[in-house]
């Protein structure tokens, strides 16, 4: 880490808990000394390290050892042949962060970085504004690090996600409003209390954690980049960081320079970025979200401009899917690959299906679908949409009768 740098005007700031440029409100980003990193971060060095995201630690913004979330990352990259066949594409993989450690979403990557940095800067209380997964991860990682935590969430979240924060002893504050309102309130709270808000004043460090997903994809593919990556978009941050991760690996010579397209996926009920992309605009119009994909329900996406820029620069596309298409895609992924994703995963698989069908992702190419969260946390969304168990008495005769009946119905 060298400094924090404004993405708009390139003014530099010290490596503190601050997130916006005082001159134009542009977001601050961590700047690195790549010449120095190139000397120590070789393929051999990386391969000799434990299988966690810290094997790329030179490219992550922490000063000392990874004291929070030492086991996070290096989730499976699943070769998804059955899903590939169903979608009609040659080579397909699922990057499965539904089994990330410890809270089953990609947020463990960003939170571990943010909390390590919070400890390094001397904070004792950590907080976040969240659509659910981030709150779970802050609550769990703060508990194991011995930090006090406050998590702020919209009050209409899935029960599973609320319980998944409460269990760790976090202070869970439900806000009567949607995420953008939670966000606004948290920006005001962050200015008033001396806490480390992972996605407010710690954002420059926090957001960098997402890059590890890109590094792992490249390494797990055998040190190469996929031709296409499909990424869910809420604020748009993950998409921009996957792009940055790929760019850094090319810059460091860890993968060959190659053309790679990074596509964005949203839910139709909250699609400010995909609507702008499809209309060829470089700005978006905020919306009021209405979708079952609550983890993606951000109507005023902070990184929307940059996500649009990345898609433009990598000649990529965006699209969005309806609630029914999301449920169908969750089922398709589960039935073909045995992976139960949350609603955001349904969005990503559903959009991948659309982009392949329309030819925006050619059938003769390689693609990676990023699944960022676990279906067990959003059971409400598929309840009543995936069939019912059949009930019988413990009798062989009843079972045989049931099978005979079903064979007749299906014949």
């Amino acid at each position: 880490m060298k400094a924090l740098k404004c993405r708009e005007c390139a003014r530099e700031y010290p490596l503190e808990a601050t997130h916006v440029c005082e001159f134009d409100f542009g977001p601050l980003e961590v700047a690195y000394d790549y010449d120095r990193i190139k000397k120590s971060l070789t393929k051999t060095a990386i391969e000799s390290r434990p299988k966690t995201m810290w094997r790329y630690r030179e490219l992550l913004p922490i000063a000392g050892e990874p004291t929070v979330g030492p086991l996070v990352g290096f989730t499976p990259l699943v070769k998804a042949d059955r899903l590939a066949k169903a979608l009609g594409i040659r080579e397909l993989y699922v990057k499965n962060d539904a089994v990330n450690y410890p809270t089953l979403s990609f947020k463990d990557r960003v939170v571990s970085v943010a909390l390590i940095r919070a400890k390094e800067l001397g904070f004792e209380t950590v907080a976040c504004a969240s659509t659910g997964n981030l709150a779970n991860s802050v609550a769990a990682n703060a508990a194991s690090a011995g930090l006090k935590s406050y998590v702020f969430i919209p009050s209409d979240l899935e029960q599973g996600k609320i319980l998944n924060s409460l269990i760790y002893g976090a202070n869970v504050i439900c806000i009567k409003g949607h995420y953008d309102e939670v966000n606004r309130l948290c920006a005001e709270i962050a200015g008033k209390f001396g806490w480390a808000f992972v996605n407010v004043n710690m954002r420059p460090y926090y957001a960098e954690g997402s890059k590890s997903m890109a590094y792992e994809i490249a390494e797990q593919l055998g040190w190469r980049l996929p031709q296409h990556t499909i990424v869910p978009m809420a604020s748009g941050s993950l998409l921009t960081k996957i792009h940055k991760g790929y760019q850094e690996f090319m810059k460091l010579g860890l993968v060959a320079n190659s053309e790679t397209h990074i596509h964005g996926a949203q839910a139709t009920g909250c699609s400010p970025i995909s609507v702008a992309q499809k209309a060829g605009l470089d700005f978006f119009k905020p919306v009021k979200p209405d979708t079952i994909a609550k983890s993606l329900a951000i109507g005023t996406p902070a990184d929307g401009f940059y996500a649009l820029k990345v898609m433009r620069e990598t000649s990529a596309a965006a699209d969005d899917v309806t609630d029914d298409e999301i449920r169908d895609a969750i089922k398709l992924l589960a039935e073909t690959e045995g992976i139960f994703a949350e609603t955001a995963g349904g969005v990503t698989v559903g959009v991948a299906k659309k982009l392949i069908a329309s030819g925006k992702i050619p059938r003769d190419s390689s693609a990676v679908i990023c699944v960022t969260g676990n279906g067990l946390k959003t059971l409400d969304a598929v309840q009543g949409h995936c069939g019912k168990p059949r009930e019988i008495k413990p009798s062989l005769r009843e079972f045989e009768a049931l099978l005979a009946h079903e064979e007749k119905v299906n014949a």
Partner: protein
Amino acid sequence: MPKKVRIPTPLRKLTNNEELIEINAATIGEALVELQTRFPGIQERLVDEKGEVRRFVNVYVNEEDIRFLKNRETPLKDGDEISIIPAIAGG
């Protein structure tokens, strides 16, 4: 009763660390001009060369984003509270 503007942390250096500023303007556009008159330099931080509110600045009147209202033309009435908030990351 005047209107109040809540100043975000990154701009408080310009307002002598004052968090809540009372103003008399009748629209958001006028409010920006009034703030500039009293705290020189503040306007250029909030609007770009074309006079548009910068893309990483969100302005709210009583908790509603001005982009859902009338942007710079959004009218202000007595007692309204205006918040200026930097865009923040997802969660």
